[in-house]
């Protein structure tokens, strides 16, 4: 059974269709890249998957997350699925983190929620130990300092590692990453992509990776879905879609990405 099964999802606001009749599914442990340019509806699709759509957006169709219907569900029924079924890492780690809370406490929050959800107890020393363990797993240096630091006191790449640690603290079956490296430098991006790949593998998580950047998606995803103005135009294995795109729009994107790649080849 699919971990995430979206069927005929249509999102509208004020009579305008933002996403049209979209269907896609992710099996446990699978990695799907959702590609689209600005305004294509890719982030809205991710928000719809976890029931976090803004109130002015109307959703039709079906979203089954870990077997439970998200569309039309009451907030109280969604709270227990979030975190357990899916956790999200957003683009901008500075706004995703609470600026007034030390890193240690921010990471502790989802951790404590998970223990409560699982009906287990954990004391303060146990929390401190697990927080450090999580920060170690995302390869943060100097953990003593970072635990007691505020978000503004660490770098952008370090903040994104903290956001990933918070997502891991939930032990989700599906990790949703919405442009997680777009705000980062290229060398930091390479490190974060490698880290994400490794963690998804180690934890047997599924991955929904949203990006406008084709080569970035190629680094982490096996399957790819291409979204254009709210419509899914093409879907398939990364290698075959990028090698032989079937839709004109995908062909144009692949050609543009390949042109910048070629410019980097000194032989040309």
């Amino acid at each position: 059974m699919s971990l995430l099964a979206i069927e005929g999802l249509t999102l509208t606001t004020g009579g305008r269709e933002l996403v049209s009749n979209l269907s896609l599914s992710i099996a446990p442990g699978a990695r799907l890249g959702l590609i689209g340019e600005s305004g294509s509806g890719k982030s809205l699709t991710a928000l719809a998957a976890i029931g976090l759509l803004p109130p002015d957006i109307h959703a039709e169709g079906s979203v089954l997350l870990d077997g439970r219907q998200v569309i039309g569900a009451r907030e109280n029924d969604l709270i227990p699925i979030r975190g357990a079924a899916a956790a999200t890492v957003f683009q901008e780690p500075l706004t995703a983190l609470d600026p007034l809370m030390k890193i240690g406490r921010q990471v502790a929050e989802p951790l404590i929620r998970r223990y409560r959800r699982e009906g287990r107890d954990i004391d303060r020393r146990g929390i401190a130990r697990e927080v450090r363990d999580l920060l170690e797993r995302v390869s943060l240096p100097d953990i003593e300092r970072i635990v007691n630091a505020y978000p503004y006191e660490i770098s952008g790449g370090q903040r994104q590692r903290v956001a990933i640690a918070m997502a891991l603290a939930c032990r989700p079956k599906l990790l949703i990453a919405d442009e997680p490296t777009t705000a980062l430098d290229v060398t930091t991006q390479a490190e974060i992509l490698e880290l994400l790949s490794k963690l998804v593998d180690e934890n047997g998580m599924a991955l929904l990776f949203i990006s406008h950047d084709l080569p970035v998606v190629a680094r982490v995803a096996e399957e790819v879905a291409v979204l254009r103005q709210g419509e899914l135009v093409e879907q398939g294995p990364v290698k075959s879609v990028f090698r032989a795109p079937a839709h004109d729009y995908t062909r144009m994107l692949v050609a543009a990405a390949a042109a910048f790649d070629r410019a980097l080849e000194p032989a040309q």
Partner: protein
Amino acid sequence: MSLVSVESISFGYSRDEQVLRDVSFQVRRGVNVGLVGESGSGKSTILKLLLGLARPNSGTIRFEGEVLKPGDRAFMRGYRRAVQAVFQDPYSSLDPRQRVDAIVAEPLRALKIAGPHRPIIEAALRDVGLPSDAISRYPHEFSGGQRQRIAIARAIVARPQLILADEAVSALDLSTRIRIVELLGTLSKAMTILFVSHDLGVVASLCEEIVILEKGRIVESGRTSAVLAQPKHPYTQKLLASVPRMPA
């Protein structure tokens, strides 16, 4: 003689923080230069100094051999005519209350260039591939890529010799980005571009020469093809290896 000559400049916003250390490079007429670095490398500070918005603590910047004098109004008037800029964010760099004709005409007014301005503006809009009815519309009526075309039209309207482009395509979608890079490539037949970016692929597409900046120092520079073929400095090697590529 170089168009721009940056000669061992150092700069810090405060006494104990050096943003640029002994930076030197040349921009020759007709040869686009890419200034590449990550956040905090000092690349935007270099642009600030080149625009005369700040002065180096030491070192000299020359334009066509003449020392840049930000306080000298007569010098700056000629300099502004010769050097224009395009910024990263096409949403914040255009005045939302002005029509496109007023936005593009701004350098003509500021530089007191004789009119009539309308044919000059129309020519600039044509050069950047905007439809002729764009002239009487407002920025919010345009997409991000079209707004960047408006910003480029404003930069080229007074026919400058040098365009300073600060991450001018970074905020654009891939399909738009490639068209704006092509546009800049076409325009650079008539003017020179100093293109500041973190994006090696874009720089390689547009610039014959490249300057790699790390933490306020130049670590490597030269012909783009040569630097990319055989990057000598470990930082350049790391940068190049970090660029994600399409699967082979």
